[in-house]
């Protein structure tokens, strides 16, 4: 009997990815919600280096870093809902873009929302440029992974689920349908996937949380 635990927070986009993957593959699991201001001894034991969430614990062995965890899940539970493509080149492309998303797109989007004044203006330009690249990736494709959703859609899923609350806090709609028709259509398709839909976070609570972070940032 497999024992799967996920250490996380309800609002982290990195944790969300793992919840989606576990749900898509019908993997029974327990979620342990952490208070990041008061981390549990278990979290610190399972992720002593980064002390962050998400951490996946599978039969007492721990895996950290969300994209590493996603690939672990895909390689361990191979028979249901494969996430990464089979072809090496397609896999390389998805890994490249997932990394780009995490290192460039997500920080700039979140940064744009949290910043003020001139910093915000600059962050906005960078974010828009990044979003244009993703928009291009979706030309003639239903999902980022191709005809059906996969690893790359999950990696960018934060854009589908978090863009609205982030835009409310920023006071500006970044993902508008005129500039980003492909991304907006993708967003709707992604959110309709049953395993994604059932874990839709409460939007109002997310807005409140991001607003609190922004007000508290003092920048």
């Amino acid at each position, binding site marked *: 009997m497999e024992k799967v635990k996920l250490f996380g927070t309800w609002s982290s986009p990195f944790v969300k990815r793992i919840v989606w993957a576990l749900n898509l593959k019908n993997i029974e699991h327990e979620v342990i919600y952490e208070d990041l201001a008061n981390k549990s001894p278990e979290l610190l034991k399972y992720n002593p280096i980064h002390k962050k969430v998400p951490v996946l614990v599978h039969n007492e062995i721990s895996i950290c870093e969300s994209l590493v965890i996603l690939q672990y899940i895909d390689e361990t539970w191979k028979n249901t809902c494969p996430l990464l493509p089979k072809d090496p080149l397609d896999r390389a492309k998805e*890994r*490249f873009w997932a990394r780009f998303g995490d290192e460039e797109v997500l920080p700039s989007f979140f940064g744009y929302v949290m910043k003020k004044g001139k910093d915000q203006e600059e962050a906005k330009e960078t974010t828009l440029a990044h979003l244009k690249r993703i928009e291009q990736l979706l030309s003639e494709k239903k999902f980022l992974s191709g005809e059906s959703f996969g690893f790359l859609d999950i990696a960018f899923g934060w854009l589908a689920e978090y863009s609205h609350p982030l835009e409310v806090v920023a006071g500006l709609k970044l993902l508008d349908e005129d500039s980003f028709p492909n991304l907006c259509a993708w967003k709707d398709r992604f959110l309709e996937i049953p395993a994604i839909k059932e874990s839709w976070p409460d939007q109002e609570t997310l807005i409140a949380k991001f607003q609190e972070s922004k007000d508290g940032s003092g920048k």
Partner: protein
Amino acid sequence: MADEVKLHGVDGSPFVCRVKIALNIKKIDYKYVVEDLSNKSADLLKYNPVHKKVPVFVHNGNSVSESLVIVEYIDDAWKAVPILPQDAYEKAQARFWAKFIDDKCIPALFKAIGSHGEEQAVAEAHEQLQFLENELNVKGKKFFGGGDINLVDIAATFIAYWVGAAEEALGIKLVSKDKFPKIKEWDGNYINSQVVKDGLPPREILVAFFKKRFGNA
């Protein structure tokens, strides 16, 4: 039909070196295209329009960028002599450590080098290196990959070779034998492996680079 394999790079880049080592391990013939980063080739800009950086790997006209993505691609596409472990958990561990080296170790070491061995910067680099030291200690083997070189060893090439050149160029000590005995031992094993030796640039180039970039005026 023979594969067409090209690698765009510069000699001084530890990231390009990772790819060379992977190609050596797999005994893949390739054409090495030296780039001038102040005057990037049209091909480089075509193959890596997002970052416009090296290394860029081109296999039968298809390009792959980002050194660790390239190494995994090479491992996926050429099955002989695996670079990543077969077991899913071991694979996850290898990816974790490779990412740790990229995200934490190398930036901290670069900061320590750039500051000419300033105390705080060195302390921060040591904090990250200690995790690697512990990992080697726990594993108790020749390489991060055990008996053979794996993704983690390749990711750590900068630590094995570039750091030593920087130490020489700037007259500083970053990784000492008494503080990091396991890393130094690993270093020696790694640099002396033929597949690595064949991919490393001449040390003088790196020493000259560090002197020029960070040396006193």
